[in-house]
């Protein structure tokens, strides 16, 4: 446990994180995550985060040490894609039972590792610690070390039990495990001046392959991708790369920074979501590689590819832009990728009315401000009810979010698009951008919405005059309640004398300015007939404040 808390402290101390650097010593110790609110928390645990970060390693067996919940409830649920091995999709767990809790689960874990080696013989085994064995003190580091020696195979402990924090912490702890046990343990067969690492790219829906052809064309080799379509050997030898790109915001910044520190691999933070971001990222990769000794013509060649691709994608998107003009999107992601998706959507001509920044760092937020302007509506923690209201009131035309909040939009009969890990479509690079635009278009302009927003004929409020009238009155009343000036104008506009159309305001003014006290007087000073409206005028005379001394006013007259 002590090594785990040390690792957590180390992660919290991340100097590469601008947000962290601005904190006091005490604040930093507390960690970069807010205390979770029992009873109103959402999102995964640290174990979940570690698994998300590492499961895309395709030739590794991922063994979860814990009771059935941790793996049984979650396995094979990621949309990452593999170009070869499939062992990563197999669910392995020790399924700890009561006996293990009492006597300790280390033995079972060791046997489990042996069974996997014997039956499946994977390149490596990653062993994930979970809450229960962490509580009872199972030392997975020791078991992994012993198993590693015994079976002559890398068995890597991933110490990130759920209760130490949220997903983002888990991803970083997973990164620590890679740094400690994997990276730099093997040598690549050969190296080229064009070798790069991609860090924090998970190849969801195969989106890495939307960009890879461009790398191939430029002769840039992805020495290792952490961890999309990743292979153990590639990561183990990734310390020989010339440059690195940190793809998914800050999720694995510790890996990028420490690799720079240890192996002198410069990195930058970039994104392949959106046209501008894709071009910037390609440029930056080329620049870093040339800086590290690649032939200078790479820059020129990269510019040529960028120019060609940009022209192509703009031409493909052009027809959509007029269709999207005036359409408003609400973006609710975990917040990690917000700024890059914001850029992508704006390029397609959508207006963004808000984006979540719950998990974004300060730097991310700055970028969003840059993209959306100073008054960007950044949503720290939007409750589903608020999202629903925003959509129901048609303040947004489409919501883009992860799977868990999709029904908030769909049940409001509003278009929704999945942009998280369970999605079907790949949206990276130039081709991905076109795909995203296509999908948004399909969602926005589906003729279905019109039908769904109609009520059933038997409770059709639009055609029911009574309900319509009530609704109008309600709406007006609400408006009036909100605005005192409007309330007064409305009050004064009330007709008192219907025959001559004299309103309350006119009569009140006459009474006040002339100090009138009788119906007769009112009749003289206004057009009011005082016949059928006699009672109403009497009421006004009674209700008028006596504070305006009539004598004085009359005198002034």
């Amino acid at each position, binding site marked *: 446990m002590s090594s785990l808390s040390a690792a957590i402290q180390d992660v919290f101390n991340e100097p590469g994180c601008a947000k962290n650097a601005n904190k006091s010593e005490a604040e930093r110790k507390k960690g970069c995550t807010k205390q979770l609110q029992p009873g109103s928390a959402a999102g995964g645990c*640290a174990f979940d985060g570690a698994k998300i970060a590492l499961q895309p390693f395709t030739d590794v067996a991922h063994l979860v040490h814990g009771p059935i919940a941790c793996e049984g409830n979650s396995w094979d649920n990621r949309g990452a894609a593999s170009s070869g091995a499939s062992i990563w999709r197999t669910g392995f767990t020790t399924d700890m039972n009561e006996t293990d809790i009492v006597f300790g689960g280390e033995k*079972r874990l060791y046997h489990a590792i042996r*069974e996997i080696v014997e039956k499946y013989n994977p390149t490596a085994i990653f062993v994930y610690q979970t809450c229960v064995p962490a509580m009872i003190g199972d030392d997975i580091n020791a078991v992994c070390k012993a198993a590693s020696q015994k079976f002559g195979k890398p068995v890597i402990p991933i110490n990130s039990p759920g209760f130490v924090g949220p997903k983002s912490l888990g991803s970083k702890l997973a990164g620590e495990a890679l740094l400690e046990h994997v990276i730099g343990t093997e040598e690549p067969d050969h190296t080229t001046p064009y070798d790069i690492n991609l860090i924090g790219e998970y190849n969801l829906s195969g989106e890495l392959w939307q960009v890879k052809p461009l790398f191939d064309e430029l002769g840039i080799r992805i020495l290792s991708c952490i961890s999309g379509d990743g292979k153990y050997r590639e990561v183990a030898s990734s310390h020989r790369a010339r440059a690195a790109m940190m793809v998914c915001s800050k999720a694995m910044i510790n890996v990028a920074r420490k690799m720079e520190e240890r192996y002198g691999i410069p990195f930058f933070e970039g994104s392949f979501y959106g046209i501008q971001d894709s071009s910037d990222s390609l440029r930056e990769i080329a620049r870093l590689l040339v800086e590290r000794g690649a032939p200078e013509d790479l820059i020129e060649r990269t510019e040529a590819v960028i120019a060609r691709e940009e022209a192509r994608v703009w031409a493909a998107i052009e027809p959509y832009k007029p269709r999207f003009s005036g359409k408003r999107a609400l973006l609710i992601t975990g917040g990690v990728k917000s700024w890059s998706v914001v850029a992508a959507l704006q390029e397609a001509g959508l207006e963004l009315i808000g984006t979540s920044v719950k998990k974004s760092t300060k730097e991310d937020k700055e970028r969003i401000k840059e993209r959306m302007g100073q008054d960007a509506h950044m949503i720290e923690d939007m409750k589903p*009810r608020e999202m*629903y209201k925003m959509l129901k009131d048609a303040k947004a035309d489409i919501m883009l979010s992860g799977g868990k909040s999709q029904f908030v939009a769909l049940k409001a009969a509003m278009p929704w698009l999945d942009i998280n890990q369970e999605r079907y479509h790949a949206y990276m690079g130039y081709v991905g951008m076109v795909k995203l635009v296509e999908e948004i278009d399909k969602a926005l302009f589906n003729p279905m919405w019109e039908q769904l927003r109609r009520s059933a004929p038997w409770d059709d409020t639009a055609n029911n005059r009574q309900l319509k009238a009530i609704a109008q009155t309600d709406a007006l009343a609400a408006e009036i309640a909100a605005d005192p000036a409007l309330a007064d104008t409305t009050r004064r506009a009330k007709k008192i004398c219907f025959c001559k159309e004299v309103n309350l305001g006119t009569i009140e003014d006459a009474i006040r300015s002339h100090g009138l006290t009788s119906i007769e007087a009112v009749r003289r000073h206004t057009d009011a007939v005082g016949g059928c409206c006699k009672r109403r005028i009497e009421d006004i005379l009674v209700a008028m404040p006596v504070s305006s001394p009539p004598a004085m006013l009359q005198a002034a007259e």
Partner: protein
Amino acid sequence: MTIVTAPKKACVVNPLKMSQPIGGAFAFLGLRGAMPLLHGSQGCTSFGLTLFVRHFKEAVPLQTTAMSEVATVLGGYENVEQSILNIYNRAKPEIIGICSTGVTETNGDDVDAYIKLIRDRHPQLAKFPLVYVSTPDFKDAFQDGWEKTVARLVEVLVEPPAVETERDPARVNVLPGCHLTPGDLDELRTILEDFGLKPSFLPDLAGSLDGHIPDDFTPTTIGGIGVDDVVSMGRAGWTIAIGAQMRRAAETMQAKAGVPFRLFERLCGLIPNDQFIAFLNEISGRPIPLKYRRQRGQLADAMLDAHFHIAGRRLAIGAEPDLLFDVSSMLHEMGAQIAAAVTTTQSPVLEHVKTNEVLIGDLEDLEELAKARACDLLITHSHGRQAAARLNVPFYRAGFPMFDRIGAGHQLSVGYRGTRDLIFDIANLMIADREENHQPTPDTWRSPMPACRSGRHSFIDAPERSIA
């Protein structure tokens, strides 16, 4: 009698089982205005939530006490208290259902005592329905969590009828097992109502997870049985329990409120439904509606049409005990052989499964058995998709979770009509499989030479398969 065995391996590969707490939470989801709360770290809830959402394609309320490492060491009282207050104030639920998890059970949190203390400290909660079930992850399975929770709901909420109150003979309590879908419950509701009976389902997932579109957004469940309806279940004339897992709840109901019960272990298949309809005829005193006489005929005809495709099939099935027993028995009755059966947890029905051995195991076991025993039909939940692809056999998805197909909430298996549709679906899979994978070739019937064998099946059973 069937032998039930558990394998002696240390590593579960491709789990079939899901954990007990989410089975418990699932039961709470069938109550109106409910907020299920898992007492554990936030991942316990988040994984369960993702499963439910992907299965039903619905928003699902599920909260967590968000136990941190420190809270786990110090005990979870404060987290439970804060969670309940937070949910009570923000979501305004009608009931909060609390399930423990592995973390808090290992720690030994005494949640019953916590709740007592919370009620004392917060008078507004003195009478508020807070139902707690102990469901450690490291014991039992999804179905057990459901079973315990429903029994607990009966124990805590149902009131024994006062001595002078008359029972309403038309009121029937229905206690459905977790293997029934919202679609199944609606089917049962219609059948019972057609007999003039007034059913109350506990839990009623059809009210909450049937996919309807509510007028407004609610953070709790949007339908299901109300707490007040559960309270008055003691006044019903009968309780119908479906699935052996519901025996405990039915017995609790009987002990507490004196409502007699009838347990139907199965509602898929001709004979079980004959028994069911006959029972309704008996307790309602109403003649059997023409509709069901016709549906019975339709099922019989479906069996005739489908038996060509189902008979002789070697079934590999992985499911929780009640679902396994129900579906496999129906297919057995149509001539299929249950060649491999894997389940998640102990149950009395396992002994009646029409096979030699039922294994409490995982999908690796099922896949190995299916391969060794040349099975040519696989039935399990969506996690069987990888095995199905490797085995290259027809794959029918049944049970929870079903995340890679839509309409899980409306897949029927109960009643004459539900059985009929299920039979059609499975038979059509066989037909499609034959068209895709078993077209005869000039070499299909040639003498055995290893080089001539094509595909997975042996040359001997090929001609049999080309009938119909």
